[in-house]
C-alpha cells in the first residue's frame, strides 16, 4: 500500500498546487466524467451478470471470453450502426433534445461529486472538479432536470405510450423529489453544512446511516423511484407501456437514453455513499493499513449498485397510483419525522 500512497501523493501535489487553475479543472473534469462513464458501464455489466446469477441464468458469456466482458462494446457497435429513426409526426427538437438533456443532467451532477479529501502540506484538498458551498443543493437541482428529458421525449415522440410514460414520470418525480429533498435537508442540518465535503467529514465519527436510519431508508426508496428502477420503473414498464418514454427511440439515441438512466443510478449510488455511508471514511477493520479514501468510496458505490440490482431481482413492480400514494402518504411524513429527529440530534451533537 505504500506504493499507492506515494503515487497518490505525487499526483495530488501536482494537482493540488494548481487546484484552481482552469486547465487542471478541465483535466480533472475529463477524468471524473470518464470515471463515472466507466462506472455506468460497470453497472450495466454488473447488472447483467449479477442479475443472471440471481435468476439462475448465465448472463453474457460469448463476447470477450467466458465472462462476456466485451458484450457492452458489441452492443455499442450495434447501436451506433442502427438506423436512426425520427418519427414523421414527432416534434423534432424535443425528440432529439431529450436524450441530450438526460445525459447532460447526469454529467452536471458529476461535477460536484468529491472522491477523496486529502491532507497535503498543511492544506486540505477535495478531489472534485468543483467544490461549492452548496454542492448538495446543486446536485438536487440538477438531478431534477432529468424530468424534463423524460417529458420532452414523451411529448415529442407523439406516441400515446410515450405520453403516458411522460405523465407518469412527472407525477412520480413531483412526489418523490420532496422526500428526497427533505432527507437531504436532514443530513445538512446534522452536518451543519450544504457542502458535500463537509457532510462527509461530519461522518468521520459516526455515519449518518446509523445516526438517522429512517432517513437512509426514506432516501434510498425515494432514490430508487428517482432513478426509475424496480419496483418503481412504471415509466418504462415493458408489459404496460412497451418501452415507456423511449418507445419511439432507436439506435444511438435510444442508447443515450438508456445510458443516461444508468448514469443517474451511478450518481445516485455516489450520493448515498457520500451522505449516508460515510464517503471516504473507512471502517476500522483494516487496522493501521493505509487505504486511500477513493477506494472506500468506490467500494461503497459498488455495494449500493449491487443493492439496486438485488432489489430488481427480488421485487415486482408497483402500480403507478400506488407509487404516488406511497410518495405522498408514507415517505413525506416519514421524511418530516426524520427531519425532526435529525434536528434534535444535530442540536445535541454540537
Amino acid at each position, binding site marked *: 500500500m505504500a506504493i499507492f500512497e506515494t503515487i497518490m501523493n505525487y499526483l495530488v501535489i501536482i494537482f493540488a498546487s494548481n487546484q484552481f487553475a482552469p486547465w487542471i479543472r478541465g483535466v480533472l473534469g475529463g477524468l471524473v466524467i470518464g470515471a463515472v462513464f466507466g462506472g455506468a458501464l460497470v453497472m450495466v455489466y454488473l447488472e447483467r451478470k449479477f442479475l443472471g446469477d440471481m435468476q439462475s441464468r448465465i448472463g453474457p458469456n460469448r463476447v470477450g471470453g467466458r465472462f462476456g466482458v466485451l458484450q457492452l462494446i458489441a452492443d455499442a457497435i450495434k447501436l451506433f450502426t442502427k438506423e436512426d429513426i425520427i418519427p414523421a409526426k414527432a416534434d423534432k427538437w424535443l425528440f432529439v433534445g431529450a436524450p441530450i438533456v438526460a445525459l447532460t443532467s447526469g454529467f452536471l451532477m458529476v461535477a460536484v461529486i468529491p472522491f477523496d479529501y486529502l491532507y497535503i502540506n498543511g492544506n486540505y484538498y477535495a478531489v472534485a472538479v468543483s467544490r461549492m458551498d452548496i454542492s448538495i443543493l446543486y446536485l438536487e437541482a440538477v438531478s431534477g432536470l432529468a424530468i424534463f428529458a423524460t417529458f420532452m421525449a414523451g411529448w415529442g415522440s407523439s406516441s400515446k405510450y410515450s405520453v403516458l410514460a411522460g405523465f407518469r414520470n412527472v407525477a412520480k418525480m413531483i412526489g418523490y423529489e420532496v422526500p428526497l429533498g427533505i432527507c437531504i435537508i436532514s443530513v445538512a442540518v446534522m452536518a451543519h453544512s450544504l457542502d458535500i465535503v463537509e457532510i462527509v467529514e461530519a461522518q468521520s465519527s459516526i455515519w449518518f446511516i446509523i445516526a438517522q436510519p429512517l432517513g437512509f431508508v426514506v432516501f434510498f426508496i425515494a432514490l430508487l423511484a428517482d432513478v426509475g428502477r424496480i*419496483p418503481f420503473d412504471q415509466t418504462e414498464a415493458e*408489459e*404496460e407501456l412497451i418501452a415507456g418514454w423511449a418507445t419511439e427511440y432507436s439506435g444511438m439515441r435510444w442508447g443515450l437514453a438508456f445510458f443516461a438512466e444508468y448514469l443517474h443510478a451511478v450518481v445516485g449510488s455516489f450520493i448515498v455513499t457520500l451522505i449516508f455511508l460515510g464517503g471516504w471514511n473507512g471502517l476500522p477493520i483494516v487496522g493501521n493499513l493505509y487505504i486511500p479514501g477513493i477506494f472506500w468510496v468506490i467500494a461503497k458505490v459498488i455495494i449500493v449498485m449491487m443493492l439496486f440490482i438485488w432489489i430488481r431481482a427480488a421485487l*415486482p*413492480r408497483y*402500480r403507478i397510483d400506488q407509487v404516488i400514494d406511497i410518495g405522498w402518504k408514507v415517505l413525506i411524513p416519514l421524511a418530516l419525522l426524520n427531519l425532526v429527529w435529525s434536528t434534535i440530534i444535530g442540536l445535541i451533537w454540537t
Partner: protein
Amino acid sequence: MTHEATQITSPTKPSEILLHLGPQHPLQPGPFLLDLKIEGETIREAELKIGYIHKGMEKVFEDRTYLQILPLTDRICYLASNSNNDVYCRGVEELLGIEPTDRAMYLRVLTNELCRLQSHLLGIGEYATDVGFLTMFIYMVREREGVVSLLEAITGSRLNHNYARFGGVANDLPPGYKEMALKTLGELKKQIKSHDEMMSSDSIYQRRTKGVGVLTPKEASELGVAGPPLRATGVEYDLRRMEPYLVYDDLDFKVITQNDGDVFSRVKVRLLEILESIYIIEQCLDQMPSGPYKQDVTPYITRPKAGEVYARIEDPRGEMGMYIISDGSDKPYRFRIRGPAFATAQALPPLLLGGYVADVAAIAASMDSCTSEVDR
C-alpha cells in the same frame, strides 16, 4: 352487465385517449388488439378484436381423415397439445365404440397432468413478468424444463406431443421412468412451495393483485369461463370431478378453489393445482396396471358410423370440447371446437373497466388466455 360485443366509442372529452394495445405488444402471448378508451390512466371502455392468426382449423379438419387430424390438434394450442389429442381421441373413440386399454388410460391421465403442470408453470411465469417479476418467470421456466423433459421422455417431443391414439397411446413408458419422474416431481413440489411463499407473501405483489379484476361466479358462468378463473371465484367446477373420464374416478384429488375471484386467487389456484397434479401423477405411477398400452388392432383407416359426439375434458385452461359429426366416411362431416381460451378472452374486456392501464397486464395474464386457441 350486458355481455353483447360492445363497440368502443370515440373519445368525447379532451382528457380521454384511445389506446390501441396490440396487435403487437410485449404483454401479449399472441396477436390480438385491445382497444382501450382511457381517461388519465383509468380504463373507461374496452374492446377486444381477435382474428389476426385465424387458421381455419375446423374447416381444415373436415378435409382430413380422422388419423390426419390427430397431429393437427396439437397445433390448436401448443401448451395444451396433449389435452387436445386426448379430447379428440375420446370423441373418435366414442364414435367408433371402442375404449382405450387400462394402461393407456393411466398413461393418458399421466401425460394430461404433466401437460397441465407445464402449462400452469409457463402461465404463471408469463404472468409474473407482466407484474414486473422477471425473476419468477425465469424460475418458472427452469422448473418447467424438468416437466417438459418428463413429457419428452414419454412422447418423444417437447411441445407438440401427438401421443394419444384411438384406443391407446403411441408408446409405453421408457424403462426407469418412475424413479426419474418421482425425483423431478419431488424437487418441483419443493420449489413450487417456495415460489408460492415468495410470491404470496410479498406486499407489493399483494397490493398489485388483491381485489383487482374481480370476476363473480355469475359473470363467469354467463361468459362461459371455466377452469382456474372459474374455480378462483369459489365454484367447485372441474370436469375431472363432475364428469369423470379416463381413470379420474379411481384417483384421489382435491378440486382447488379460492373465494375472491381476483388476480391473486386465479394465480393461487394455478399454484395449488400444480401441487395437486403432482399428487395425481404420483398415484398414476403407483397404480398403473401392466398390460397393453394400445389395442391389438389399431384402425388406420377409420370410418365411424354416422352420428355425432361431443367430447370434453378439463384442459389446463378450462373446458375443452370437440363436437364431431360423422357421416360414415373417413372424414368428419362437421367439426367444431369449443376452446377454453376463447371464453376467458371474451371475459377480459368487462374485467378491465374501471381499472388502470397497469392492471391490463396483470388481469390479461392471470386469465391465461391463448391467442393461438382463440384464433384456431
